[in-house]
């Protein structure tokens, strides 16, 4: 009935994954590494301009003899360097947003699911109202009011995301709260804090992790959308969204400015989506007890 996978080695489990998982995992790892090591890898400063080298197609040699593998934009910045720097922004915003929104959602979801009653009423209704409102519009509103900065982008996006996490956690908490092993802890005299931490929380974490993975990808898209609209990180910081926005005017003459960050974004988000699906399949229903 229960398959014990604890004994399997990491290598053995990796070998058993389908090809798309390997591709997705590889892509994500590559981008994460590039984001972390970006400043070391990039041949150029992402913010440095060079009017002589503007709008060069990919693979052109620059005036100083270096190779622009992915071309340059309208002010002569290297696209590769911009994409790497944008990766950093994108990754930071997405991860911090998911951690902040996920924590808030976890806390509120646990309260709503475990205690029920008026706490559940308020949290769930506020969540419903918010979900009825397009999340990007809400983020645009918040980002517009707060002004452009990375912290404000994170705040705006976290506010739009907590509901999703809260719902997932509430559902799991609700399913576990009346199970007999929780009752037996109550009879034993366990406090609410102990039951929440030791009995309810462990059952909520696997579905929360799946939701968080998928949300990292979607948050990256949302961040790029805000930056594209000029409501994201300030112009001094690179972002895929703002690079795509700049390239929009040159689509006919210099397609690579918008295409390269766009492709990078698509690739990462799809890969993270595949990983999320996989995580959902792997998270055995038996372990969600």
């Amino acid at each position, binding site marked *: 009935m229960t398959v014990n996978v604890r004994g399997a080695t990491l290598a053995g489990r990796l070998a058993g994954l389908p090809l798309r998982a390997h591709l997705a995992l590889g892509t994500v790892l590559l981008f994460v590494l590039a984001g972390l090591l970006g400043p070391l890898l990039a041949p150029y400063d992402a913010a440095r301009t060079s009017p002589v080298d503007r709008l060069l197609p990919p693979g052109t040699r620059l005036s100083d003899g270096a190779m622009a593998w992915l071309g340059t934009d309208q002010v002569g910045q290297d696209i590769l360097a911009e994409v790497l720097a944008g990766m950093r922004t994108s990754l930071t915003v997405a991860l911090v947003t998911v951690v902040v929104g996920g924590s808030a959602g976890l806390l509120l979801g646990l309260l709503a699911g475990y205690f029920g009653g008026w706490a559940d009423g308020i949290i769930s209704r506020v969540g419903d109202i918010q979900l009825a409102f397009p999340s990007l519009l809400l983020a645009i509103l918040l980002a517009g009011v707060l002004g452009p900065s990375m912290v404000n982008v994170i705040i705006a996006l976290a506010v739009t995301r907590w509901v999703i996490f809260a719902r997932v956690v509430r559902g799991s908490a609700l399913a576990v709260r009346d199970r007999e092993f929780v009752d*037996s802890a109550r*009879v*034993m005299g366990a406090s609410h804090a102990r039951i929440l931490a030791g009995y309810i929380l462990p059952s909520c974490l696997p579905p929360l992790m799946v939701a968080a993975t998928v949300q990292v990808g979607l948050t990256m898209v949302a961040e790029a959308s805000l930056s594209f609209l000029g409501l994201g990180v300030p112009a001094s910081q690179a972002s895929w969204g703002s690079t795509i926005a700049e390239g929009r005017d040159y689509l006919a003459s210099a397609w690579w400015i918008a295409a390269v960050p766009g492709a990078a974004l698509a690739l990462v988000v799809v890969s993270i989506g595949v990983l999320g699906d996989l995580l959902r399949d792997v998270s055995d229903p038996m372990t969600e007890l």
Partner: protein
Amino acid sequence: MAGTEPLLELSDLVTSYRLRPGIGRPGGEVRAVAGVSLTVHAGETVGLVGESGCGKSTIARTIVGLVRPSGGKVLFDGRDLGALPAKELRRLRRDIQIVFQDPYASLNPRMTVANLIKEAWRIHPGLVPRERWDDEVDALLERVGLRSEHAGRYPHQFSGGQRQRISIARALAVRPRLIVCDEAVSALDVSVRAQILNLLQELQRDLGVSYLFISHDLGVVRHLCDRVAVMYLGKIVETGSKEEIYRSPAHPYTQALLSAAPSLDDWRTDESDEIVLTGDVPSPLSPPTGCRFRTRCWRAQDRCRDEEPAPAERDTGHPVACHFPGALPPPTTTAPDSGRLTKE
């Protein structure tokens, strides 16, 4: 055997569940337990029998504090559990433990056996000094017929009977004085059931613990219990010693229940003396007026509709809640007028 002061005393206990109004259904209150009085003395085993849905489990859940009573009192050791300050209540809760029916659902699947048992001492610090925990776990496992090498395993690695032993060890860890067994052996195979029953008896002999043994299985109750209470639709209809209930049942429901229990020589004769009750148990949402059993009773008369019979000794030697208790088995042919009773 039974002391003077009861260990557990339920007095006119009422537990109700509120129903939310839905589409085409008014809201209301289900009195799952509708005024139950019952005592359990130290070192005694009291059986509580009845059909499923009659409120047995609700009584269990009320006693251990999972459900709040909406009326009446639960007295433990003479103290009203509803009136105690939270801190004292927590201390007293230790004395009352429960073993649930389903050993697959009642153990946290993420905890090892050792942790399941130690959890009791984490919740109640000072009960067992930390350096003694491992020894104490071994001792408890041995006590319930498991081995100390089982301590590191997870519940899913055990059979149903073994898991029920773990549940019992866990209940014993807080050194309770009363264990409520809510259908504790109903999910087990017959052979395993006998082992667990023997274990329960052995523990009672050695530790002096009392049991409130809730079951629908009359054979098991007869094997284990000193006294028996029979429940129907939220009320206790008859209480008495094991002999009184099994030898001379006075309430028609008890008689029907006992006649329905399979016996070893059923196959010998074609004719059965089983009393087959017609109709279903009425909904606890709108119980019948007067006696709750009257809609299915072959002795029912007008008085049963108008007046609720209080439990009292009516020449029966033990309390019966019936206006017309009778020691005699019901007639062997179809009931005279009502046709409520059929004999096969």
